[in-house]
Structures are given as C-alpha cells and as structure tokens.
C-alpha cells in the first residue's frame, strides 16, 4: 500500500514537470531549442517507421552485445580476483583506472580501430558497464560468510562445492545490484558511441536532427533511449525477484 502511494506520487510529480515544460515551451516558442513534450510525441509518431526499422534495432543490438560482454567480463574478473589475493592485487587497480579514462575523448580512437562497425560502440558500452558488475560481484564473493564455508568443510566439501553452494548464492544479490546500474549505463554508453561515429542508431539519429535544427527530432530518439533503459531495468528487477525469491516477503 505504502509502495503504491510512493509510485503514485512519483507519477504525479513527473506529470507536473511535463506540464510545466509544455507551458514554458509554448511561452518561449523556440521549438528547435526547447520543443514541447507534445511536439516531441508528434515527431516520434511521424518518425516511427524510420526509427523502428533501422535506428532502434541498431542501438538495441549494441546494447545487447555490450551488456552480454560486460556480464561475462565483469563476472569473470570477479571470479578471478576471488580465486587469489595476488590476482586481486594485480587486477583491481587496473579495473579502477579503466574508469578514469575520459571515454568521450577516446571514442574517436575506437572509431579508428574498429571503423564504423558496431564494435567501436560496443567497446564504449562495455567500458562503462563492466565496472559496476565486476566490483559488485567481487564484493558479493567477499561477503560470503566464513562460517558457511567452514560448515561445508566439516561435511567434506570440495572447493568447487563451496564455490557453487556458498560463494555464488552470496554474490548473487550483489551481482544484481551491479547489473541494475549497468543496464541504465548501457543506454548512455550506446548513445555516446553512436554520437561519436555511426551510420545508424538512436544516438546517431538524434545528432543528425540537431544539424537540421529539428529540436523535436533530437528529443524523439532520446525518449526511446530512456524507455529502453527503464525497460531493461524492469527486466533485471523481475529476474532478481525470481532468482532471489528467498528474500521476498510471503
């Protein structure tokens, strides 16, 4: 009940902000600087064929490939660091410093390396999204209680048993926290990648519209991007609820 009220108040707040935006936009009447929400929706409708047939699929592909690689890479790194202290000492600083790279400055170089193929954008997405997954999952492994491991040892368990039956279940909630951050970042990663060099995609389209002073056209694909982000987030929350059913209230 409380939760429902919280949801409702957030919806009301968004609605009020949209109305405020609409009013402001109608007053200043500079659609290429500040298009109104209604104008954006109309433009989205006009562009639906073009966006839906080429640009949306192109961006979705980057996001999906990027996230898949990020999950494999992030979890892989966390497992490696969990295996030995010296691997952890070697890898952890590299992982941290990868996040200090100004990706926007580097992205043109990725274009040089990978051309206009999807890989230049996938690399940007992966660079942004593997980090929360790796760090959270590793923290999850560290959170595994020593007492459980010892109990399993007294039952004659192998290292593999302990990893499968204690480490992984302990890390799973942390992994999902990381994944929730990663999916929202993945949308940003894909958009940045496309901004900096692409021939299709929602980020690319938005930029093209900017050169044509089409304000509503800039915003329309951005609305789609944030919808993708929200949708992915909800999918992850659903998976989390399903896999971590032991945390749910009866």
């Amino acid at each position, binding site marked *: 009940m409380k939760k429902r009220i919280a949801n409702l108040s957030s919806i009301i707040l968004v609605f009020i902000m949209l109305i405020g935006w609409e009013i402001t936009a109608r007053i200043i009447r500079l659609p290429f600087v500040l298009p109104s929400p209604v104008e954006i929706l109309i433009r989205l409708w006009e562009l639906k064929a073009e966006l839906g047939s080429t640009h949306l699929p192109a961006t979705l592909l980057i996001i999906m490939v990027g996230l898949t690689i990020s999950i494999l890479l992030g979890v892989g790194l966390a497992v490696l660091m969990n295996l030995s202290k010296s691997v952890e000492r070697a890898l952890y600083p590299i992982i941290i410093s990868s996040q200090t790279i100004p990706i926007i400055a580097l992205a043109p170089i990725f274009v040089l390396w990978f051309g206009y193929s999807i890989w230049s954008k996938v690399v940007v997405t992966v660079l942004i999204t593997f980090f929360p997954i790796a760090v959270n999952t590793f923290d999850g492994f560290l959170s595994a209680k020593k*007492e*459980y491991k*010892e*109990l*399993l*040892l*007294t*039952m*004659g*368990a192998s290292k593999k*048993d302990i990893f499968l*039956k*204690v480490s992984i*279940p302990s890390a*799973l909630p942390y992994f999902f926290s990381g994944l929730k951050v990663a999916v929202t970042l993945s949308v940003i990663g894909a958009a940045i990648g496309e901004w900096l060099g692409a021939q299709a995609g929602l980020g690319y389209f938005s930029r093209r519209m900017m050169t044509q002073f089409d304000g509503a056209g800039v915003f329309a694909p951005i609305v789609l991007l944030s919808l993708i982000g929200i949708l992915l987030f909800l999918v992850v929350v659903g998976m989390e609820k399903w896999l*971590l059913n*032991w*945390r749910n209230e*009866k």
Partner: protein
Amino acid sequence: MNDVALTLKNIDFRYGQSEKVNEALFIFENLHLYLRKGEFVSIIGPSGSGKSTIFRLITGLEHSDAGTILIDGKETGNRLGEVGYMPQEDLLMPWRTIIENAALPLEIQGMKKVQAYHKVRPLLAEIGLGGYEDYFPKDLSGGMKQRVSFLRAALTGSHVLLLDEPFSALDAITRISMQEWLLKQWRMLEKSILFITHDVNEALFLSDRIYVLTGYPKKPIQEITVPLNRPRQLLDLNKPKMLALKDQLIGQLRGGSR
C-alpha cells in the same frame, strides 16, 4: 576399547602460529577426552574456556600442535567430513529452503538432488516439520531451525555428533521441550553425542558424563558421571544428590572463571 567412538589424547593447542611461544596463549595442554559409542557426554565451561575450540579440532577445522584424535579407534587423514557437526548458530543458508538445507550433506556426498529430497522428506516429517519443506529459514521459529540444523548434522552419516550450544538461543520453555526431543532423537538414531553447554541443569539432565572445562590457564579437564538412570524426568534434577552435584559443578565453574 573398540566401543569408543572418539578419543582425544594429549592434545596441545594454541591459536596462531606465532614464532615466540607465549605460554599464556595455550588453550589446551595435554587434554584428554573420550566418548563411548552410544554415549551422551556434555562439555561445560564458562565463555571463552575453549569449548568450541575442541569441536574445531575434532572436525578438522583446526589442527592440534601435539596429540592424536581418533574416530572409531582410527586416525583418519584430516577428519573433514568424518563427524556430524552442529555449529553454535544454526547457520541455515537463507537462500536454501528447509529441505535443501537439510539435504546439504547428502548433496555434498554426491547424492542426486531428487534422491536426497526423497530421503529427507520423511525425516523432516518425523521431526515435526512436515509441510515446511519449501519454506525458507526466515519463516521458521528458533526451535524449528535448530531441529533442521540437527537433522542436517545427523545426515552427515557419521554416528558421532558434535552439538555446540544448540539451545542457548531458545526461551526456557522451548528449550526444555527441545531437550526432551533431543533425547528421543538420540535413542532413535543410535548416535554418540558430544554436547556443549554452559547451562548446568541442561548438562545434568541430558548427559551420561560431563567434562568440566574451567578454562585456561590450563587447568586440567574434570570428569563427572551423572548418577541418574534413563529415561529421566526433569523432576529427577530435584533429588538431593543431584542438587548437591549441581552446587559442586557451579562451584567448579565459578572457581575457573576469571
């Protein structure tokens, strides 16, 4: 001596492998202890006297600096997986259902899940947890959780069970019914039980013999035989000789605490 389930001989032990041997760090020096087959023996002692450490040595989680530990008269490798151990907290895994928790030792022994659950299901019903198989630990009371934890220890297949203060977190009434329940399980399952407690009444009610650990620095362990036949009633503890024994035990524990 082939009726002995467990023997600890001349055990020296201290935590940490520090170079300088600090005498005060020794938790045990020349510790002796045994458990006959089918016997119920308690270890009683004040907090910090090393009771749990004895169990860590027997299970193989720690290694003694000197001495031998025999299970069924044999000295086996590292002893991991040789005895059933019920730790001080229930340590049920929150992400496993009740049946999954109880079946854990069977899974580790390599039994197929379906088979393991098939074996565990009737046992859960027997300890009054029929219908709770698919609940998670958080939805059970303290007493129920302890019963699952006991079943899990019993399912390791060893006839030697080490129970570390299993009932200390329970309220007085639940505790008494759990003690009676445990005696019933012990008779039925034909196990040899070594039981840690710091409750004198509990030790007297349950045990054939009691070891009194008055704790370090290195006082020798003392042994008491409980002069009561079985089956017992709680009222038996009010007999004059039992009251005297109780006073004596409390005196020993007081003298030993720092």
